């Protein structure tokens, strides 16, 4: 027995503190040989936190002196599972967990886990990507997905780090085979693949639900659900979906009630979802004049205008007769003119008429400008939306809108932003540059643009803002030093942004959030929703639609 202890001690020393994921699967020798396996430091999971809706923590009927007192069992994505506090888990389509079993083993005292089933081994790489390894595979092997009747050949990179598409493909398959010279040399069932992948990510994320797939039926929170809570439909939705549906319900209610405070992760997920939706819509918008050519099939084949954008954004909730949050937010905009209000009430059928034509014309001009990478002509940008050009990555419009709205609200606002603007004669270039850097960082890190595109977007934003400032008499004297790219920087805009960043919003917040802090008090008085929840979209509408309405 001494050698067991010695082995355990050595392993414990090698394992060290909780380490990040590694792509080296633990070997059987990594596990303590006996009772040492149940040392509390080996517990990496809290079995009271359900992995999926319906999962329950249960007590093990232990007869001996050691063991894990609890485990969790449940059903997710068609497979039954049980896992222990040390991460050891089994996934199987049989409730007995006896056939077609994915077995998950974790290196002691770490979050480094891998799943095994036959020749297949799944684990997460250092970068958090799912990696599949097929035992005894050779580079010349041919991989085939089979469902028993048909076969689909898949690239050899299936034996390695998987991208999203490959992961989705494997999740839809039933069996993965490796063929060599026509003979099947490895065959592994993929039943439970997606559930195990989610489990591995869940462990690596310390049981954080945000890493689970969007359609994963996670419970309401880490604490045990109250009686009957599990059966509530709301509890089955993903956090973002729950939030959206709650917002829809709140929008339906009259008078509207304040939203439940969202957690940071929920808010982030919501914002990301909205940005993704906007991105899709804007991409569709680029092809709006040519329905059917590159337009996502889910979108209506109507010319995309600000009005249709609003409708498009609200499409999903409206199917159930509920106004979207975006529509609500747009309607609640304090500065909305009659034209803006009319735009908000546009339907998809009537969206092509009126100001939309003007905006489309302006978009064309913008595209031409972007394509030529020439400094914007102030007059040409009057009332221009920040619509992305075909060469601009999705999401550009949002950022351009942010820039525009900064100029508007910075100029029209009062308070800190203006006060600081009053000292614009002594404007600190470094502070302005810091704000720009923050913007740039946001564009590259959050939005995923490359550096060149991000700079271009910033230029576009400032040009638009500069034009607005020139067009607005109140802004006439606010011309600032020229930007290296040829555009101008408005001191008020930068100061407003800076004030927002230094007063209430952390630097890591989105530029849209920073802008709203600088909004006039009257404009900040949103009647229904907390401003922080939807400022990004508000600003989007403000920046995209208001200029169009003004024209």
């Amino acid at each position, binding site marked *: *027995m*001494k050698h*067991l*202890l010695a082995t355990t001690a050595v392993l414990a020393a090698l394992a060290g503190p909780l380490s990040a994921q590694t792509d080296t699967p633990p070997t*059987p020798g990594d*596990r303590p*040989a*006996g*009772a*040492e*396996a*149940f*040392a*509390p430091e080996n*517990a990496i999971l809290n079995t*009271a936190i359900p992995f999926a809706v319906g999962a329950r923590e*249960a*007590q*093990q*009927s*232990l*007869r*001996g*002196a*050691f*063991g*894990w*007192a*609890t*485990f969790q*069992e449940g059903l997710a994505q068609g497979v039954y599972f*049980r896992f*222990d506090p040390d991460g*050891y888990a*089994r996934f199987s389509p049989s409730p*007995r*967990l*006896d056939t077609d079993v994915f077995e998950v*083993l974790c290196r002691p005292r770490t979050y480094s886990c891998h799943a095994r089933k036959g020749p297949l081994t799944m684990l997460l790489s250092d970068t958090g990507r799912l990696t599949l390894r097929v035992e005894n595979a050779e580079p010349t092997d041919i991989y085939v997905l089979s469902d028993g009747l048909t076969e689909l050949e898949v690239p050899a990179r299936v034996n390695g780090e998987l991208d999203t598409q490959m992961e989705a493909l494997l999740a839809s398959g039933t069996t993965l085979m490796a063929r060599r010279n026509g003979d099947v040399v490895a065959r592994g069932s993929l039943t439970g693949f997606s559930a195990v992948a989610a489990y591995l990510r869940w462990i690596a994320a310390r049981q954080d639900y945000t890493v689970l797939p969007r359609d994963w039926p996670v419970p309401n929170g880490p604490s*045990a659900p109250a009686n009957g809570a599990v059966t509530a439909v709301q509890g089955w939705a993903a956090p973002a979906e729950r939030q959206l549906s709650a917002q829809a319900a709140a929008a339906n209610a009259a008078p509207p009630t304040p939203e439940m405070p969202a957690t940071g992760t929920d808010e982030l997920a919501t914002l990301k979802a909205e940005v993704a939706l906007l991105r899709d819509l804007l991409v569709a918008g680029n092809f709006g004049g040519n329905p059917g050519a590159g337009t996502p099939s889910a979108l209506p084949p109507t010319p995309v205008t600000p009005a249709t954008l609003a409708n498009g954004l609200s499409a999903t909730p409206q199917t159930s007769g509920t106004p979207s949050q975006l529509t609500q937010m747009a309607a609640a905009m304090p500065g909305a003119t009659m034209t803006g209000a009319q735009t908000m009430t546009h339907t998809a059928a009537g969206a092509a008429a009126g100001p939309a034509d003007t905006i489309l014309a302006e978009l064309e001009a913008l595209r031409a400008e972007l394509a030529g990478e020439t400094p914007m002509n102030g007059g040409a940008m009057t009332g221009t939306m920040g619509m992305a050009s075909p060469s601009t990555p999705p999401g550009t419009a949002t950022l351009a809108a942010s820039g525009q709205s900064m100029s508007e609200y910075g100029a029209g606002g009062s308070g800190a932003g203006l006060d600081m603007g009053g000292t614009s004669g002594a404007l600190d270039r470094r502070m302005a540059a810091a704000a720009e850097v923050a913007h740039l960082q946001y564009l590259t890190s959050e939005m995923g643009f490359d550096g060149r595109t991000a700079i271009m977007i910033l230029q576009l934003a400032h040009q638009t803002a500069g034009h607005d400032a020139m067009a607005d008499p109140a802004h006439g004297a606010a011309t600032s030093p020229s930007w290296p790219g040829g555009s101008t920087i408005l001191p008020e805009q930068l100061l407003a942004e800076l004030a927002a960043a230094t007063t209430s919003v952390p630097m890591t917040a989105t530029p849209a959030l920073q802008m709203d802090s600088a909004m006039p008090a009257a404009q900040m008085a949103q009647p229904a929703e907390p401003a922080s929840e939807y400022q990004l979209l508000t600003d989007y509408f403000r920046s995209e639609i208001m200029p169009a309405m003004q024209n």
Partner: protein
Amino acid sequence: MTDRTERKRSSFATALGLFAAAAVVVSGGAWSIASAARGVFLMQEEEVIPVIAGGDLDRLPALMRGNRPADTTSNTMGEPARLKPPRMCEMPTDYFDGLSTATLPAGYTQRNGYVRPFQPRRGFLNERELRAAKVAWHYFEKFTQEDTGLANSVGNYPSTTLWDTASYIAGLVAAYELCLIEKPEFDSRVIRLLTTIKGLELFRRELPNKVYHTQTGAKVDYTNKPGEIGFSALDIGRFLVWMRILKNRYPYLGNTIDSVLLKWDYSNAVDSEGVLWGAYVDKESGETVYAQEGRLGYEEYAAKGFALWGFDPVLAHRAEPFLTASIYGVQVPYDGRDPRIFHSQNYVVTESYLQDGLELGFDMPYDDSSPEWLHSDGWRAEFADRIYQVQENRWRRTGFMTARSEHNVKGPPYFTYDTIFSDGYPWNTVTPRGDYVPDHAAVSAKAALGLWALWDTEYTDALYDAIIELYDPENGMYEGLYEKGQGRVEIFTANNNGIILTSLLHKVQGTILTAYTGETEVWYTAFRDQDVRERRNLPDPPIEQDWLPALRHSVQTEADY
């Protein structure tokens, strides 16, 4: 002719005279007896026998029975008590020549006793068995903690339960009786152990915590860190069995043993219905939760442990509710409580039946005098025969050598219930959380040698050959032999080695539990002047009316397929 006639007349006269004399004698005798009887009866009606307080005729309330001995079959029926046999090294060479054999046919008796169709193995240990005994004892020599006297449950992992401590006591008794150790070492070990157990911090001042650290004696949780889990009625029940064995065999330890047990509070362990209750800590509230504990097999064994100390676990001792599953023609009994509702598995394994047979002889707790071939707890012996038979049948039908029990395994999942039947499946090998792990099915060493000791058959000869040399001289007997050819279960435990020693001791001495030879017990007389006995639910010496009922269940007469 005349002489012949005269002779006939003379004979007739003699006969007539004799008849007349006999009639007179009989009549006189009858008259005398009748007169005497009448006198006696008339006198009895008038005679008054004074009832003396505390005397035999005084029907004492239970609380006042403290100073009288518990009723057993030997002192109520006048049968010779089953006394402790001599140690193996003190036995005469012809000791086993005079062993009694069954004089009744196999089956239930009128009093619901049971005569088994099988015989246990009896005799001196041969060389192979003695070597196995020495190796098994070496486990305890190696893994007993010097400071506390507690033995580790598993190898050098310093943790133990009362169940495994009972296994250590079993090993200690066997080692002494098999002459592997002498009395000084036996006394030293047992007194150190009992002293430590008396000093153990109890779970919330009730009963011993389920797990203790063997080096410090501190109560710990399942990860061997300071904490408390609750108490196990089954563990305590087995511990009580061995406390009674120890006390009855070695009366000089009686006071020490009594003082250990008197410290405990049994008020939540046995209720008025005779149900055994365990306790655990609610994870959310931290409060004690009491839950019925035990399923068919273990529950009755633990109940008998409590009954040996005067408790009345009448419900726990009954087999009901139970069902049967037909496996290889044998109706295997299993607990009828639905695990989906009660969240407790109904494992059918060999171990608890073996312990009942080896330690208690399948006898009722009050039975200290019946011959070894008669089992007064009849249905237990009959059920045990079924448990044996189904395993032999599997061997004969499939070739799989089978001796199923719960056992540790090396590596995940570390512990398995290697069952005959559970969760609706025969030959189900599952982990404590319910995973089916057939690769961990094994011939359990303790089960194999236990079967070998109690069933002297061709099949157990095969088991014996498979197991008797399955040892590591440095660490003890291996846990078992994997059924699918993965080799030995390379782990060493107190329970396995303790039961193996018990099996070997049974071969030499028969049923381990012997009769109590003393009179009153401190266990029953202590705290009579206080309310402690009521508060802690300490029992009073049972009288015959308190005995658990001896029952029978329907016997399977032919194979059922």
